C-alpha cells in the first residue's frame, strides 16, 4: 500500500486553515467534477479529491492523519502501525459503503475500521450483535454497442467491494461479475442486479447493484431513447420520382423503406416500431439526404445541362423579393 499525501492532492500547505482547505477543494472540484469536467481522468481525480477532503475537512481525522503522516512521502510503501489511531475519537461524519468502495486502500486501511467493533458511527459496524440492516446499493457505468440493444450482451464487470477481515479491518476486494444485459436496453437506463451491492448487516439482505447504460457512438445511427435516427442518402431521381430504398439496421436485418415522390433533402420519414426493441419499441426516424452525382464526365455534364435547359427550375423562387435572395 502506498502512502497518500492528502495535502498535495488538494494543493495546500500542511498548516492550511479549514477555510483554505475548503476553498482548495471547491476550486478543484469545479475543475474535475465528473458532471462538468472534460479532463480525461476527471472521475478518478474527483475520487482522490473527495477522499482527501473527507480526511482534511474533518478535524479528528485530520489530526490522526497528521500524526501518522510524519516522515512519510507520497508513493512510499506504507503500513500503519497497530493502534495508530489510539487516543483519537472519530465522532464526525462516517462514510457509506459506496463511498468507501470509491476510496483508496490507503483510506480504507486508515479509517475503514472507525466504528468497526467500537460501536461508533460508520459504515462498518457489522459485528454489532443483533443489529440487522440491508446492505447499501452500488452504482457503476457500463458502455455497450448500439447493436447490443437488439441482441443483448454479456459483459464482465469489475467492482471494488469493502469487506471486514478477521481483525475487523476494512479491505477492498475486487469482484468480477459476468452480467447478461437483456435486449431492449436504452441510453441512460438503469439495470438492476439484485443482491450484488454491499453485504447486509447481521442477517440483513445485501444491497443491489445499479448499472447505468451508455452507448458507444455509432458511425451511422443515433439513439434517442428507444428511437433510432439515421440519415438516408438518396439519388436525385429517387427523391424526385419516389423509390423503395433498402436500409440496413444495427441488428443485421434490412428494411425496405418507400420514399414518396418529391421528397426534399431534410424530409423526415418515420417507421413506427422499428427502432430499438422494447415495450413499446422505438421508431426508426430517417432523414432524407439528397446526394448529387458528380458532373465529372462529359455524359454527366450533358445530363445536367439538359436538365438546366428543359426543367425551367429556380431553386430560389421562394426567396424572390427578399433582401438576401
Amino acid at each position, binding site marked *: 500500500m502506498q502512502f497518500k499525501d492528502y495535502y498535495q492532492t488538494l494543493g495546500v500547505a500542511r498548516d492550511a486553515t479549514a477555510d483554505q482547505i475548503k476553498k482548495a477543494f471547491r476550486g478543484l472540484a469545479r475543475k474535475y467534477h465528473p*458532471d462538468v469536467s472534460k479532463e480525461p481522468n476527471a472521475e478518478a481525480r474527483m475520487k482522490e479529491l473527495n477522499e482527501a477532503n473527507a480526511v482534511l475537512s474533518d478535524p479528528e481525522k485530520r489530526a490522526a492523519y497528521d500524526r501518522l503522516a510524519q516522515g512519510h512521502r507520497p508513493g512510499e510503501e506504507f503500513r500503519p502501525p497497530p493502534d495508530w489511531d489510539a487516543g483519537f475519537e472519530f465522532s464526525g461524519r462516517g462514510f457509506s459503503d459506496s463511498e468507501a468502495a470509491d476510496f483508496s486502500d490507503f483510506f480504507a486501511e486508515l479509517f475503514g475500521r472507525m466504528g468497526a467493533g467500537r460501536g461508533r458511527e460508520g459504515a462498518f459496524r457489522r459485528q454489532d450483535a443483533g443489529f440487522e440492516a440491508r446492505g447499501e446499493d452500488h452504482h457503476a457505468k457500463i458502455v455497450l454497442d448500439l447493436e447490443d440493444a437488439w441482441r443483448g450482451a454479456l459483459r464482465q464487470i469489475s467492482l471494488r467491494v469493502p469487506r471486514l477481515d478477521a481483525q475487523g479491518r476494512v479491505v477492498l476486494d475486487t469482484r468480477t461479475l459476468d*452480467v447478461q444485459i437483456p435486449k431492449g436496453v436504452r441510453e441512460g437506463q*438503469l439495470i438492476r442486479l439484485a443482491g450484488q451491492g454491499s453485504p447486509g448487516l447481521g442477517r440483513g439482505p445485501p444491497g*443491489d447493484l*445499479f448499472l447505468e447504460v451508455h452507448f458507444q457512438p455509432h458511425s451511422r445511427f443515433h439513439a434517442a431513447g428507444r428511437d433510432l435516427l439515421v440519415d438516408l442518402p438518396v439519388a436525385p431521381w429517387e427523391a424526385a420520382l419516389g423509390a423503395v430504398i433498402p436500409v440496413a439496421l444495427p441488428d443485421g436485418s434490412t428494411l425496405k423503406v418507400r420514399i414518396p415522390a418529391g421528397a426534399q433533402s431534410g424530409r423526415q420519414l418515420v417507421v413506427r416500431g422499428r427502432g430499438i426493441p422494447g415495450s413499446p419499441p422505438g421508431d426508426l426516424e430517417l432523414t432524407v439526404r439528397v446526394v448529387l452525382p458528380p458532373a465529372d464526365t462529359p455524359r454527366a455534364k450533358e445530363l445536367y445541362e439538359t436538365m438546366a435547359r428543359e426543367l425551367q427550375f429556380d431553386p430560389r423562387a421562394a426567396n424572390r423579393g427578399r433582401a438576401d435572395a
Partner: protein
Amino acid sequence: MHEDDVLIGVLLEDACLTLDELSRACSVPPDWVIEHVREGLLSVPGESPAAWRFSSRDLWRARQMLRFERDFEAAPELAALVADLFEELDDLRARLRRAGYD
C-alpha cells in the same frame, strides 16, 4: 464460465422505483427524497409517497443533485437548477451529435 455464473440484469422501466428503493439507491433517508419532491426539485411521481414510482431518469437526477449538494455544499434549489441546466445541455449535445457536429 458456467451459465449459472452469469447474472441476469433487470432493465428498470419508467416509474418503477418506490420511495424506499430510490432513497436506498441514493444512500439518503426517505425524508431527503420527500423534501425534494415537496419542494418541486424532483418530479412528483404520484399522489402520496406510498404510491410514488420513480424512473431511471429520476434516480440519475437525484444522484446528480446529491453530488452537487455534497461536493459544493450547494443549496438544494441551486443543485436542482444546475441539474436542469445539465439536462438541457445533454439534450443540445445529443442534437448536435445527430446533426453531425460531434
